[in-house]
Every structure is written in structure tokens, then in C-alpha cells.
């Protein structure tokens, strides 16, 4: 049964009487008055996540010097950007390393740009009849360039495995430092606040869904890469392994460094913390029930990143992981997270505020996300290692 439609919700946003709660607040209401009350009374629930998301980057258009140039190779603060697109367009990927500095990369260039800092641009070209110039060196900033938009192929992972290490030496991973002999565990999602865990069937999230991205509004552009919808689920429809993802797009010129932060993971590399928040319209009771999911109902595998094939050492829920300690093989292990609950909460509150103040209306997806997808591996040529 439908409780409300997108246009009804938007009318209420316009009138200023929309009922909007964060994903944390709605669970408290559900526990007190039940899911039926949530379905009846709540229009919108806001989610949030702030984690390192390697698959991020930005398209930039620098404008033409005179005479013009068809940039073939581009560096921003000595970080290579991909220039194999039209003349003065380039894509700066978050994980690209500086050719000179150890702990500086594409994510830092993006953070510097949104912070309003000057960035050195170096471009080299072969020169053509229509684009005769063969090199240019310039100082740019976010206002001096034409377009700048964040375009992240894979963000907002729906669930992720927790990581530990059983070997005798420390390993350095994108899940942080994993100490020897099962001495620590790191996990990475905001659990019950996480967008794709609050609408696990993605009934309200699809192409064109307007979201919070990097401190401003952005959009779901496509399903994210490695989009996997056929993972085994638990009794609460939650996939127990990394599953759906989102490709996100938004105007870098409007974003702020509080919600886009460069990250350096020792002996692994560079990544970008991205702040993402998705508003979920409570269209019916099924969606109301989904957003009321608790950490204790969201489970994931603990994987041994030290062993080949990363075998699972057991299933844990986020209430256990967030408690600071879990028991593995009879041993108490300290847990830590990679993504910030503090920021995730801040994002869900900010988005709630925008909706409540009439600054943010909801969009119905133009098209749903794919179903029945799984992943393919990559087979190296025979005889190669």
C-alpha cells in the first residue's frame, strides 16, 4: 500500500510541513511507536556516510590559451591527470600519485581546488594544425577554470567486509594497518546510517536521484562499478558482502573541504574521503521497515587479509564491530573504523536541515538500478603470471 508519493512529499517540503528524520532518529521512533507509525508519520529519512572512496575523481576543463593546445599529457601539482579526452579536458583521479612528493596525489589536488588554493598546471602536446601550441604552464584555481565536476565511478558501497590479519607481520592495506597475530580489526561503513543499507533493495535510489555530495547537492549518475546484486543476504535483506555501489556526480565548484578530504594510507596509497547522503522517501511500509534497520541486523564477514583468498573468520554485526571489541577465536580484539560515524551523522543532519527548510526536494529515479548482476574476474593470458 502506498502511503505517499514523491509529489506529495515535495508539496509538503514546499509548504514547510514535511516530516523528516535522520536514519538514527527514525529507529528510535520505530522502537517506541512501531514501524506502522513511521510509515504513517514520516515523509523522508536522511542517511549519511563519510569514508575513503578510492574510485573518485574530477573532470576539469581548463580553457584555451592563445594559440590553443590539444593537451596530450597533463600534470596538476606534479600529479598526472588523464588527458586522453578533448583538447583542454582532463580527469584527475583521486589515487594518482605525485611524481615528486611521497604523500601527495590526486585527492590532494581535488581538496586543494575545493579549498580555493592555487594549483600548478603543466600540459604538453604534439601540436596540430588546429591546435599548434605544444606546451603550456599555468596557475589555476577553481574559479579560473570552466567546468569542474566530481565524477566518482564507485562510491557508497553497500556493506563491506571487516579486515584483520593472522600472519606474523603487519600488513598495510586500504583497510588500514593490520597488526600481526589477529591484534586488530578494521571495518568500514556507517552501518545503520549508510545509504544503501537503509534501502537495500534500492527501491528509491536510481539514476537521477538527488543526493548530498561533498557538501552540496549531487546526483546518482549510474550504478557504480562492481555493482553486485546477487550476494547472499541475511534475514533482513542485507547483503553479507560488498554489493551495490553508486556512480556519483556533482559540481566541484560548490563543494567544500569538510566533505572531501584527501587521505593517505601508509604503504597503500592515496584515497579521498567523500561525504555522501541520500534522502529516502517513505513511500510505503516496506521502505519504512527498511530504514529502521539496526546495526545488530547488519552483518558482515571478518576477512583475514593476511591469508590467500582472504578467508572469512566469522560473521559479525555492526553493533559488535562498533562496540570497540569483538571476540575472534576466543581472543578479544580491538576494532576501529575507516569511515567516520561523526561525519556520517553530521551529513544526515545537514541533509535533514535542507529538506526541512525547503532547500532540497526529492527526485524520483529516472530509471532503476540494474538487478541480477554479479562480477567477473580477469583471466591473465596463458603463460603469464
Amino acid at each position, binding site marked *: 500500500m502506498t502511503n505517499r508519493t514523491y509529489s506529495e512529499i515535495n508539496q509538503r517540503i514546499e509548504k514547510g510541513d514535511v516530516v523528516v528524520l535522520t536514519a538514527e532518529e527514525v529507529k528510535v521512533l520505530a522502537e517506541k511507536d512501531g514501524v506502522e507509525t513511521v510509515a504513517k508519520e514520516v515523509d523522508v529519512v536522511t542517511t549519511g556516510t*563519510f*569514508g*575513503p572512496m578510492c574510485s573518485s575523481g574530477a573532470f576539469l576543463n581548463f580553457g584555451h590559451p592563445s594559440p590553443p593546445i590539444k593537451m596530450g599529457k597533463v600534470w596538476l601539482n606534479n600529479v598526472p591527470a588523464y588527458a586522453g579526452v578533448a583538447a583542454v579536458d582532463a580527469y584527475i583521479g583521486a589515487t594518482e600519485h605525485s611524481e615528486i612528493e611521497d*604523500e601527495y596525489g590526486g585527492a590532494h589536488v581535488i581538496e586543494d581546488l575545493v579549498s580555493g588554493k592555487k594549483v600548478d598546471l603543466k600540459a604538453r602536446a604534439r601540436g596540430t594544425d588546429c591546435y599548434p601550441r605544444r606546451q603550456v604552464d599555468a596557475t589555476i584555481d577553481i574559479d579560473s577554470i570552466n567546468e569542474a565536476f566530481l565524477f566518482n565511478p564507485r562510491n557508497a558501497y553497500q556493506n563491506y567486509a571487516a579486515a584483520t590479519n593472522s600472519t606474523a607481520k603487519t600488513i598495510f592495506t586500504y583497510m*588500514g*594497518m593490520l*597488526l600481526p597475530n589477529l591484534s*586488530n*580489526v*578494521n571495518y568500514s561503513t556507517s552501518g545503520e546510517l549508510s545509504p544503501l543499507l537503509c534501502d537495500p533493495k534500492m527501491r528509491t535510489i536510481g539514476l537521477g536521484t538527488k543526493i548530498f555530495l561533498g557538501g552540496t547537492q549531487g546526483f546518482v549518475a549510474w550504478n557504480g562499478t562492481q555493482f553486485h546484486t546477487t550476494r547472499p543476504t541475511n534475514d533482513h535483506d542485507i547483503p553479507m558482502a560488498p554489493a551495490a555501489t553508486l556512480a556519483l556526480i556533482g559540481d566541484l565548484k560548490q563543494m567544500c573541504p569538510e566533505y572531501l*578530504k584527501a*587521505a*593517505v*594510507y*601508509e604503504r597503500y596509497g592515496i*584515497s579521498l*574521503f567523500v561525504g555522501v547522503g541520500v534522502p529516502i522517501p517513505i513511500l510505503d511500509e516496506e521502505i519504512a521497515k527498511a530504514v529502521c534497520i539496526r546495526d545488530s541486523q547488519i552483518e558482515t564477514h571478518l576477512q583475514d587479509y593476511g591469508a590467500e583468498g582472504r578467508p572469512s573468520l566469522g560473521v559479525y554485526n555492526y553493533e559488535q564491530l*562498533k*562496540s*570497540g571489541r569483538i571476540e575472534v577465536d576466543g581472543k578479544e580484539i*580491538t*576494532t*576501529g*573504523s*575507516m*569511515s*567516520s*560515524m*561523526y*561525519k556520517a*551523522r553530521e551529513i544526515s543532519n545537514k541533509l535533514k536541515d535542507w529538506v526541512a527548510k525547503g532547500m532540497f526536494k526529492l527526485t524520483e529515479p529516472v530509471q532503476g538500478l540494474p538487478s541480477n548482476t554479479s562480477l567477473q574476474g580477469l583471466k591473465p593470458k596463458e603463460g603469464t603470471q
Partner: protein
Amino acid sequence: MKAKFILNFKPDMVDKPLTYLLIKEYDIKINILRGIITPGKEGRLLIEMIADDDAIEKGLEFLRNENVEVIPLQKKISLREDECVHCGACISVCPSGALEMNRENWMLVFTPEQCVACGLCKSACPLRLFKLDFAE
């Protein structure tokens, strides 16, 4: 003088009133900052001694004679707290409990008194907010 030391001692020492003796015989004020002592296993204490240099020297000599391994804490970690995003990546590597998450507001809590200056957090923080300095 004020100084911090890590004391490692063998299982058979666990029952000896070491800190009591330090206080009584050597007139050293002792703050136990952290202790992991399990009967039958090796013990580990992080202590702060407050006394004049001479007394501390004698106290340390006493400990060494008792076969206690004494590691002076010469380094000090500092954190640029205002830039922290509270991700939590430093917490699980911290062996001393100096870094913990406040589970109400989900902010990092740093308790420098507990720190054993191992430096692991410095490598773990993706924002590079920790600095290891020599203590004064």
C-alpha cells in the same frame, strides 16, 4: 623531575610489591598510568615517577637489579585535534588505550597520559595528524 617508564617483568615478579617499595624505600611518587598484569604471565606497567633525579636513578637501579626491564619513554606524541575527522583508523592500532572512540558523539578521545609513544597511530592516521617528538 617527572619521567615516564615502561616496566616489563617476568611472571614470578608479578606478586612483588615493586611500586610500594619504590614509594617507601626511594621516596618516589608513582602514578600508575596503565598496567597489564595477569598472574602467571609477563607483566607490563606504564608508570610516571616524580622525585629528584637522584632518587629516580636509584629507583631504576633497584628495578634493574630485580630483573625488571625498564624502558624510558623519551618520546611524546601530539595530535592536531581540530583537523581530526574522527574516522577511527588510529584506534585499533593503539596498544595503550590512549586513543578511543566516544560512542555517544562518535568523536575520537585522546588521553596523552596513557600513551606509550609507540608511534603506530602516526602511521595509521590518513590525515597525518600525529607527530612524534622528543619529550622534554
